[in-house]
């Protein structure tokens, strides 16, 4: 079989973000360096009686500003609309034309792909709950499906139903960019967009595409998402102080904060980037994917899967733990993640473990779930660009068991050339990407 082992180098040539701290990369980055919080009372729906009443919402966002054809995206779910904005920014930076009939960017559309870690769209919850309420026959403890059907048929809306499917954000980006290459969508929970970036890197490296629009788009700030995570007791319930609730690596951490948004990076073969003469922001040099194969409800106690993903990424990059300048942690602010992630970093980084800064921007941004990894990757690129490491905010009462350098409460100026970005999903799917300053 002809397997094109081209071994192309893969670089990042564009970035875009729509997240709780801003609707563009620079605003978001300045907010992160200033230690701002994107967390506040939930407004998307009435969450005032839920165990957790706050979240990290994208506010005041209008996708119409990012496209000449807003009608093509009007039915899109929140994630799709965020993706339209983030991808439009990233395409602009990478000089990818959105004039799909006559693209003048020297990219063969059959060699332009899309790979998103994207989540489900929200159901129309009033219709969903309302139909169940009408259909439930509590006397007999069963559903009267005829009653349910009559309500559902009038309240559920066809396009809202279609747009709930997780492949739809990718469909919107194809419509926007005219991409005709490999288009994929994955949903490995909290690790999805690190996985999408990693797999997209492999597609380019092996010659299946020249350019891939990669990243994530997701919002689980909806009634069933909040219900599910609240029942799992995975979320912080610090309702009296939302802005300080996300406090990774502290003794008082009590869960993560649901966030939403989209983060998109343009991945491109070095050959294509040089041919098109577009600025190169960083190079992706390593990717590792593993599974815990342990328990559905818990990470492996020793961080076995996390360690393996980190080691595979280092090996793929041809580096050792000695070469990493900064670790952007998964750092969710849950008891389990932060302690096992710390253990895993110690196992991989050995004598250097306490010397390598390892921070969590989830302390400010909340947890963007499917979009988290790509949002964090963008900050890794900026850390290299500006030689500055973003902080872990709200780190005022360190957990005595957790003794790494988490860059507490303020950013740190230091040379940053090689960065590791970690994402670990519920159920035990682990993904790690390593990037470095581009240097020809």
């Amino acid at each position, binding site marked *: *079989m002809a*397997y094109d*082992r081209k071994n192309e180098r893969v670089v990042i040539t564009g970035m875009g973000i729509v997240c709780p701290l801003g609707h563009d990369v620079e605003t978001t980055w300045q907010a992160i360096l200033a230690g701002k919080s994107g967390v506040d009372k939930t407004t998307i729906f*009435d969450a005032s*009686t*839920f165990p957790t009443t706050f979240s990290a919402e994208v506010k005041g966002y209008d996708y119409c500003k990012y496209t000449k054809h807003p009608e093509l995206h009007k039915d899109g779910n929140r994630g799709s609309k965020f993706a339209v904005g983030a991808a439009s920014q990233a395409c602009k930076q990478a000089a990818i034309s959105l004039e*799909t009939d006559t693209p003048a960017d020297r990219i063969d559309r*059959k060699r332009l*792909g899309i790979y998103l870690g994207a989540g*489900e769209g929200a159901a129309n919850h009033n219709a*969903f709950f309302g139909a*169940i*309420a009408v*259909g439930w026959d509590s006397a007999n403890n*069963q559903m009267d*499906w005829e009653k349910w*059907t009559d309500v*559902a*048929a009038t309240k*559920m809306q*066809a396009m809202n*139903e*279609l747009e709930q*499917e997780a*492949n739809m954000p*990718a*469909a919107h980006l*194809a*419509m926007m960019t005219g991409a*005709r*290459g490999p*288009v*994929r*969508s994955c*949903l*490995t929970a909290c690790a999805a967009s690190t*996985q999408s970036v990693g797999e997209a890197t*492999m*597609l380019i490296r*092996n010659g299946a595409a020249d350019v891939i629009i990669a990243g994530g788009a997701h919002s689980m700030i909806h*009634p*069933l*998402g909040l*219900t*599910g*995570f609240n*029942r*799992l*007791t995975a979320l912080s319930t610090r309702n009296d102080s939302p802005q300080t609730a996300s406090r990774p690596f502290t003794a008082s951490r009590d869960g993560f904060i649901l966030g939403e948004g989209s983060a998109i990076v343009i991945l491109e073969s070095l050959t294509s980037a040089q041919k098109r003469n577009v600025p190169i922001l960083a190079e992706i040099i390593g990717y590792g*994917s*593993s*599974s815990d*194969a342990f*328990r*559905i*409800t818990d990470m492996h106690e020793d961080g076995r899967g996390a360690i*393996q993903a980190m080691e595979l990424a280092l090996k793929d990059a041809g580096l050792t733990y000695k070469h990493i300048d900064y670790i952007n942690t998964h750092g969710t602010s849950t008891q389990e993640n932060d302690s096992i992630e710390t253990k895993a970093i110690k196992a991989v980084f050995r004598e250097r473990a306490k010397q390598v800064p390892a921070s969590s921007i989830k302390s400010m941004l909340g947890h963007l779930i499917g979009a988290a990894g790509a949002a964090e990757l963008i900050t890794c690129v900026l850390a290299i660009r500006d030689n500055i490491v973003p902080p872990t905010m709200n780190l005022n009462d360190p957990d005595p068991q957790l003794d790494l350098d988490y860059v507490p409460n303020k950013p740190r100026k230091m040379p940053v050339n090689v960065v590791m970005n970690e994402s670990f999903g*519920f159920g*035990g*799917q682990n993904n790690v990407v390593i990037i470095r300053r581009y240097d020809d």
Partner: protein
Amino acid sequence: MGCSRVVITGLGAVSPLGLTAGQTWDALCAGRCGIKRVTAFNPARFTCQLAGEVPEYKIQQFVPKSVRKATKLMSKDIELAVIAAREAVTDSAIVTKAIDEQNINVNPRRMAINLGAGLISCDMVELAPAVAKSVEQGQFSMRKWGKDGLELVTPLWLLKYLPNMLACHVGIIHDIQGPSNSITCAEVSAHIAIAEAAEVIKRGNADIALAGGAEAKVNPVVLMRQCLLNRATTKHNDTPESACRPFDADASGSVFGDGAGIIVLENLDTAGKHGAKIYAELVGTGQSTSINPAYEHIEPDGKAVTIAIEKALEQAEVSPKDIDLIIPHGTGIPEDDLAEARGIAAALGKETSRIPVWPIKSMVSNTGAACGGLDVVAAVCAMRDGRIPAAKNCDKVADGCNLNIVRQEIKTNINCVLCTGYTFGGQTAAIILKKFGN
């Protein structure tokens, strides 16, 4: 570390035609139809009252004792994946922890998993008591839900409905510690998962991969969604066997069902070590996407299907002349069937009229994220037995669908099969398989 050849060494399937690949294949050969009136709930008020339901099973019989507790966290989508994965592993020569803990012959770190999964729909009966408790003055109240309803939801409820849990459960059962992904590209998910799993092996990140997909579409929300989108046929509630009619002039929509199709892929260089029987070689895959503002359909000229096939042919170093069989997506939705037929014809040119085309959804129904897995299993069985069963419900090929639909069973040597897939939203894929040794 990488390799150039990836082969299929195990098959697993659950479908409306049976709980195994063997049962499914035998029923396909016999022209049986798995589509019936829905029994899982009362469909009387739905415009389409049909579905492909899988035979009854007890999930405890398909998992090792040590993980029986975990079955409580399995939605039906997960159960279907677990059953098909067990068959695929058992069918191959690999021995995982779940098969025989004393005689494991694989390195868990060199095993990958990549499963396609759908948007898993909730069991509404499970949620209903909580919803009922949240009604105030005859209306559902979100405030009351947050206060009183929510706590009636079982604590681990969410974990049943995350699409990555198919791969996580199967991975835990078989101790798969290598790369793991969950492709969520709706009806083309399994095609893409299989393609990506092969890439993972070729680039050297694993020697063995479980790949395919599973989805349980027999759920009132799913059926309502398909009815509202006019994707489900409404004309055959009294004639379920003739309801799903891919490429037929009288086609009026699809029928949705439950299923799983999972295969074992191996690096040819290491497959020999444990004496694997090799069913077929995966020689090429290709992918593209439709550009169509009517997101519920693919574009009318099927261009994205064409591009995917062309890429797969190129990678496989195969010409249209070499193809002996096509298993298309063929849903029975007239616009989409026409587009797919045009896309296939544009890619294969004058060879199109020669190559037998065998759509299987008239018998197994449209199983969403499982489609590609079932298609590939059927393709491998057809090659193994040198047999293409007759297509069902295509009495008169629809105008414009210039495909050679198989009218009568063909017994012949089949060396090369093309499977095509696509989904609403536009993503497409093509997979080319070859009989091993050619």
